[in-house]
């Protein structure tokens, strides 16, 4: 049972990690908790299903296409909702984020209806259901491997983008100090848009994977996933990308093992309890930088 629970935990943990990375990147550049991020995740699943069932696009093409749409949604979200408030107090942007979350949820409800929808299983490649590996009584399907593989590829890719490319360097510069970055000739707004696009694409990918793997999508699915991923980001130290990745996986595994060995009634409680304990012991999170409180940040 332990191994099976570990597989269960890693599957959902990898997905939490992909959403959490979006929270943390956006927080890094604009110091905003983008509460509408869970809704981008939800939109990803709905876009993919719409492409597959309405337009008849195959799964492998619908996947990246839906990611691109989510990236665009992320950018639009920033341009319309957050950019006008860039100079306002942070609280205003935070409330706007919550408002956008409610707005997008209800928009999806109007467009796609409030009933839970299945993911068109016949559109998924047939080998997904087949067993890829079997050990210790655990059956690992190709779908599991697909999720693990894609999660790892995206995480590594994201790291490369941040560490090695000019855009990544610009992002890190903006995260460190917006004014200085602007003075060196970086177009700050464009870098922020780029970050939102990246976060949106990853969140969308997570949404598609959850929708396809657990076979259910509904307009409010982003809420719980968003809160969990936010907890994962805080656990890892908000603003830190590797922290968010680790936080997501830790949260997913804690949840699965907690439900398996302690009480399933408190499954969600267990994952939040892990977060609270870590935050009490290491207030900045696992990978967070400890910053001295300065006047400016007040």
């Amino acid at each position, binding site marked *: 049972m332990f191994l099976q629970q570990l597989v269960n935990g890693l599957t959902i943990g990898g997905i939490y990690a992909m959403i959490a990375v979006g929270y943390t990147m956006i927080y890094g550049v604009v110091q905003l908790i983008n509460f509408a991020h869970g809704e981008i995740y939800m939109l990803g699943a709905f876009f993919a299903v719409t492409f597959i069932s309405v337009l008849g696009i195959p799964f492998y093409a619908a996947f990246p296409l839906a990611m691109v749409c989510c990236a665009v949604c992320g950018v639009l979200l920033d341009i319309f909702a957050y950019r006008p408030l860039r100079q306002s107090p942070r609280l205003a942007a935070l409330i706007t984020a919550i408002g956008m979350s409610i707005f997008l949820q209800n928009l999806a409800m109007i467009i796609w209806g409030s009933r839970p929808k299945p993911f068109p299983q016949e559109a998924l490649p047939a080998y997904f259901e087949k067993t890829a590996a079997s050990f210790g009584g655990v059956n690992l399907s190709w779908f599991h491997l697909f999720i693990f593989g894609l999660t790892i590829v995206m995480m590594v890719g994201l790291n490369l983008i941040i560490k090695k490319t000019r855009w990544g360097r610009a992002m890190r510069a903006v995260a460190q100090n917006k004014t200085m970055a602007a003075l060196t000739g970086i177009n700050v707004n464009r870098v922020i848009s780029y970050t939102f696009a990246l976060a949106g694409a990853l969140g969308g990918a997570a949404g598609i994977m959850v929708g396809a793997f657990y076979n259910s999508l509904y307009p*409010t699915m982003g809420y719980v996933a968003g809160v969990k991923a936010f907890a994962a980001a805080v656990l890892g130290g908000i603003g830190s990308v590797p922290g968010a990745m680790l936080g997501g996986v830790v949260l997913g595994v804690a949840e*699965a093992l907690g*439900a398996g060995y302690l009480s399933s009634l408190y499954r969600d409680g267990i994952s939040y309890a892990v977060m609270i304990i870590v935050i009490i012991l290491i207030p900045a999170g696992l990978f967070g930088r400890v910053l001295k409180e300065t006047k400016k940040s007040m």
Partner: protein
Amino acid sequence: MRNKRTLLFTGLVFGLALVFGITTSAMAENIRIGVASPYSGGAAGYGDNIKAGVNLKLKEINDAGGINGKKVELVWGDDVCEPKEAGMVGAKFAADKSIVAVIGHLCSSATLAAMPIYVRAGLAAISPTSTNVTIGDVGKGWFFRNCYTDDYQGQFLASNVVPKLLGKNKVAIFYENNDYAIGLKDSFMAGAKSGGVTVTGAEAYMKGTTDFTPQLTKLLVDKPEAIFLCGYYAEGALIAGQARKLGFNGPLFGADGIDNEDYIKIGGKAANNTYLTVPFLADAAGPAGQDFAKRFKATYGRDVDWMSANAYDCLGILAQVIAKTGPDRKKIRDGLAAINSEANGYKGITGLTYFDKKGNCAKPAFVKMVKDGKFVSAE
């Protein structure tokens, strides 16, 4: 300044007069009945059923000239199947004096939350679907229901369906953490002993969960022969799919909460070999029920479900009572309470309905199953 203020005041008075005028005139014209169900959120599919059922009856009543010449008007209250929203809907209905009775709520936990408000306001509620046992006590004489209770349903599953129909005796229970499912689980456990059924394990999940694999993994360790989907269809369908993925091929079974076409739509192939108890089954109903099933299919293009049937009868019962007592909250309650024996019971499409002191009624349960992607009678 003073002039402006006077003007504002006069405007306000006129405005208020206008508003009151409109509401009182509406009151004189229509008999208003509140219908509380989830119309959005995860349980919205159920709300659709209730709407479909009461709307058919509404059309029937109004086409025949209404009740004593007055048209019936329905007021929808969306409780999202959540206690806190149900409280708000309840308060709204209670405060609106033009509403004379309530049909609802749908989910037991919602009814439990709203009932004390109705009791305080002196407003009778008749639920088409809330099966939790304790509501009868909370209702203090203002609550009625047109369905059986969970203790009956759970015991019927444990002593009849599982050992006799399925021929199994090792069962794992997977229940949602809410009033409906916990009540159902407890009554199943109580009935299991006498039915010779062993419960190998019981795990809980929260509403809105999508990943059930940790709990299922734990339940499957004890090798149950059947899994009890103790909750609603949206989660039930996902549990079915994930249980099959984890290698469980035995029968699944559940109660009325699973009965929705979406269970098959979402569950797909995994939904096959699921058994459920329902209060209404068109195949087993009398001629009036068969006729209703036909009309339902013609109007909505889908098969009738038990919720629509029960909701249809709820409005029928209220209409019959109001025709006798007139649209008065207290008199309607007394009228409903007077339906207390077989002799004066209401003959609807779901059988004969009459209430005991707690507003409960005795209704039979039918068993149906999912076979080749379709609901069919299991008997």
